[in-house]
Structures are given as C-alpha cells and as structure tokens.
C-alpha cells in the first residue's frame, strides 16, 4: 500500500545546481514597451466612443423625422438645429438662458452655504447630527417643486419663489453628502490633524472639508442636477418673472404657439447646459482636485 501512494518520503531529493546571472539588463528595450495601434487607442478614448453614440442617435432622429414628415409632432434634427440657430441669432435663447442661470446661481450658492453651516453644526455636536439627519430625512424625499405653490403664496410670482425652491432642492442633497463625507474621514487623518494643533473652524476648513471632498463634490453634482431640473420645471409652471421668463418659459411659450422645432431647441439647450456643467465644469474641478490627489479614479 505505502509503496503505491506518493508520499514525500518516496522521492529522493535531487540537489540541483545553483546559478547566478550577471547578464541581465541586456533585454531589448523595444520589447518592454510597445505603442498600441491607432484603432485601439481611439477605441480606448471614452470621448471617441461617446461621440459615436451621439452621431448614431442624431442619424436615427433625422431618419425618423423625415419618415414621419410631421414637424408639429416630431421635427427633424435639421429643423430643430435650424430653430435653435435662429433663436440664438435673434438673441431669444441667450437672454432666456441668462435669466435662468442668474436665478440658478443665486439659489445654488445660498443652498451650498446653508448646507455647509448645517453640516458644521452637525459635526460639532450629537444633537446637531440628529437635527441634520431628521431634517434631511424629511426634506430630501420631498420633490422641491412640490413647495412651489407654497412659495408662490409666501413670496409671490417672481424670483424669490424660484430661489426658495432651488435652495430647497440643493440644501438637503449637499448637506447629506457633506455629512457622510465628514463621517468617512479616517481616524488616523483626524488624529494627525489634531497633533498639528488644528482645532475648531480651522480643523473643519483645513482638514475635514478637503478630506471629505470626493463626497462633497458628489453632493454638489447631485445638488446641481436637482436645482437645474427643479428650476426648469418651476419656470414651466409660472414662467414670467419681471416680464422676462427663462428657458422653461421659452419651451412653454413655443408649445402654445405650436412651434415644435423651437420647443425641441429649448429642450436641447437645457440638455446642453446640463452636459456642459457636468462634463466641463465639474470635470474641470475633479481633474484639479480629487483626481489629482488620487482620491478618485477614472
């Protein structure tokens, strides 16, 4: 039995010769690193792949529009671009866009400042934490637009109502993310900061905020998206403020005129602004901060 099974003592240990090489480093270097072919480099670029997708969507849109041949229901891409161009050239879309962005920036900035104050209170005491988590639990699921009727009652038709609604859409999302970010800062980093003698507001500003920046940035992005959507929706509902509406009102107006290509042009503008803020502004901030610091990949 024992002779059939392969146990360690069945084998004779063969002593093999040792060796040591002195000729390493002679490897041909062009083999270590080789350039990828152009097609592969292009395909690896996400911008290239996304452009392809956009092109495909544009072609499908155009074909469907031509086939349907009913510009009042579904205008072609070229009709839409034509309307977009006309409205940009005659200054309608730029003025509407600026009107909308003005309200947005005011609301967004107020919302972010309030969120920072709330979160600072929340991290400095237990009751503050409870206050923030209760308030976010109450208001975060509430679509900010639902507050619009109330806002109209309180502030009347006009910019203050819009700002109130935007502040509500930004504040809770940003505060929630900021607070989560603060909680994820590691003990080691906190202790390191304390041994330097950082305390109070300096501790929050110089340690907690940058350490939590990936989460804060995520909150800012979500807050932005909420604010943008809420604002366009709010403008659709009551539109004109001080005689000059924003983009939402532009869309509503042109629907009433049955100018569907202009409606599409308005929607396209809303999307473009969204893409621009996400893909250019936030991307720029990310590249300058969390990506550069190795706190976020990709």
């Amino acid at each position, binding site marked *: 039995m024992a002779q059939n099974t392969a146990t360690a003592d069945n084998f004779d240990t063969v002593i093999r010769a040792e060796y040591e090489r002195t000729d390493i480093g002679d490897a041909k270097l062009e083999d270590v690193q080789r350039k990828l072919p152009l097609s592969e480099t292009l395909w690896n670029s996400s911008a290239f792949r996304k452009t392809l997708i956009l092109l495909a969507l544009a072609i499908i849109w155009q074909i469907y529009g031509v086939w349907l041949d009913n510009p009042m229901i579904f205008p072609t891409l070229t009709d839409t671009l034509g309307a977009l161009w006309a409205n940009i050239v005659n200054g309608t879309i730029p003025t509407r866009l600026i009107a909308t962005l003005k309200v947005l920036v005011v609301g967004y900035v107020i919302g972010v400042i309030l969120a920072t104050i709330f979160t600072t209170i929340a991290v400095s005491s237990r009751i503050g934490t409870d206050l923030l988590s209760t308030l976010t639990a109450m208001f975060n699921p509430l679509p900010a637009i639902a507050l619009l009727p109330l806002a109209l009652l309180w502030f009347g038709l006009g910019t203050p109502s819009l700002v109130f609604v935007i502040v509500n859409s930004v504040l809770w999302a940003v505060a929630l993310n900021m607070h989560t970010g603060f909680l994820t800062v*590691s003990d*080691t*980093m906190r*202790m*390191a900061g*304390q*041994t*330097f*003698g*950082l305390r109070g507001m*300096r501790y929050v500003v*110089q*340690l907690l905020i*940058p*350490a939590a*920046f990936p989460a804060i940035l995520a909150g800012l992005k979500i807050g932005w998206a909420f604010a943008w959507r809420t604002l366009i929706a709010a403008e659709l509902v009551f539109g004109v403020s001080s005689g000059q509406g924003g983009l939402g009102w532009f869309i509503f107006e042109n629907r009433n005129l049955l100018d569907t290509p202009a409606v599409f042009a308005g929607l396209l503008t809303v999307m473009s602004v969204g893409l621009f803020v996400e893909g250019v502004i936030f991307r720029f901030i990310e590249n300058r*901060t969390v990506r*550069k*610091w*190795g*706190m976020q990949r990709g």
Partner: protein
Amino acid sequence: MSYQDPTRLDSGITTGTAQSVAAPNSLLNINGVTLQYKTPEHLVTATYRVTFDIHTGDRFVLLGPSGCGKSTLLKSIAGFMPPVEGDIELKGRKVKRPGPDRAMVFQEFDQLLPWKTVRENVAFPLKVNGVSKDEADQRAMQMIEKVNLTKFLDVYPHMLSGGMKQRVAIARAMAMRPDVLLMDEPYAALDALTRRKMQDELLSLWEDLRFTLVFVTHSIEEAVLIGTRILVLSPHPGQVRAEINTHQFDSRNADSPEFAATCARIRGMLFGDAETAH
C-alpha cells in the same frame, strides 16, 4: 494572574541605578497610568498602573503582544486619551490634549493629506503653528532632504510607495521639532526588506538629530534594534513586565549572538508569561 512589583532587569552594561527619582534629563514621566476605553458592550482596561520615565535622547520602545495596551498608551501620551488614574507629564507639565510638541507617526499610510504635495504636507503643521511661510518651506526642505525624498518634493502622496509615505510622515513630524517623536508601529504595514531599510534610516536620522523617540512595536527584533531601552508590557491589562537596556545594539551587530540572546530573553518574558497564564 500574579501581580508583581515592576522589577528592573538591567543588562550588565549599566549598573541598576536607572530608577533614580526625577533624573535631571528626565523628559516624559508616566506615573501610575491606568487607561480604560469603552466598546459598545464593555469597559476595557488597556493598561493598569503603568509607570516609567523617558529621558532626553532615549529611543524608548514599548513592546508587548497585542492586547497589552501599548498603542493606547502611546495615544494617551499624544494626548488623545486622558488616563483614568495617574498622570503623564512632559517636561513637568501635565499632558491634556494633542499638540505639536508631541509629533506622531502612525502605522496607516493615510496619515498624509492627499491634497497636499510632499513639501506641503511637511510644511503644513509648521504653518498651522504660526511659522512663517518661508521658514516653514525651508525647514520642510531640510527634513525632506534628510529622508532622501528631495526628488519627490512636488509629488502627491498617492504616487509614493508605502515606505516613502512613512518617510514623509517622519519628515513632517521632525520638521515640527517636537520634544518627543511618537511612532505607533510605523513599519508594520511594510514588506520585510523595506522595513529593514527604514529601521536603518531611522537610526541614522537619530545619530544625526539626537531626538527623543517613543516607538511602539510587537516585533522583538525591531525593539532590540531600534531601542536604547525597552519597556516590556504583559497583556490583559497592560502592566510593566520589565525595562531592558538595548543601547548596545544597532544594525551592525544585529546578527551577533548577544543580539539573539537578548531577543530570546525577551521572548521568554512574553511567552513564558502567556504559558503560565493559560
């Protein structure tokens, strides 16, 4: 478990007069310190009436198995945890909270601030403590040079290896010119080759600057190599088992039989204890 009075087991090199009261070069006094912390279910006693003195220029090692409270003790010296009994005095002043006079190097690599470059990381605590920008930068440069990272001045921490990050942390701590440098198992997360290199570098940095070091480790070899004096702690709760002089050892005689004998003697204390306890 039997409780013994702390006994001083001096090696033959120095005569056993180390426990003289308030020696003139005594820097840090730990007097009967009991430390407790709470978990959600338990109140844990980490150390029980631990007493020892650290002198200026000591490389003082806190050694013991896990559960002996050595890291907790170091955090208490740093000011993160007030003792429930006894007190900790630095230069005769009671330690109450963390401060730049007790710089700390942690085991974890995330002690560096990822949004600051190597240079900014080292200069940051100086600026926090009111050192002018020019002087802070200059002191940072000097310390970075001492840990051989001049080439990586403007690199962000995520691009550095583990060993380099620890070197930056040491440079950052030393740039503060602290009264004492506290190190909490700083090399435990490094590979063996890097660890050995870092130990040698720490010793030559000490030769150069002659600072006071408190070093926590669970590696007996590391303790004997790094330390001039070792405090051996027994676990559950941490109590002083022995204090041993090891200033005669460095990397040049780390292969000597005396080095091995000292390690074996400490191993006997730690594991002999464990065998009788269970």
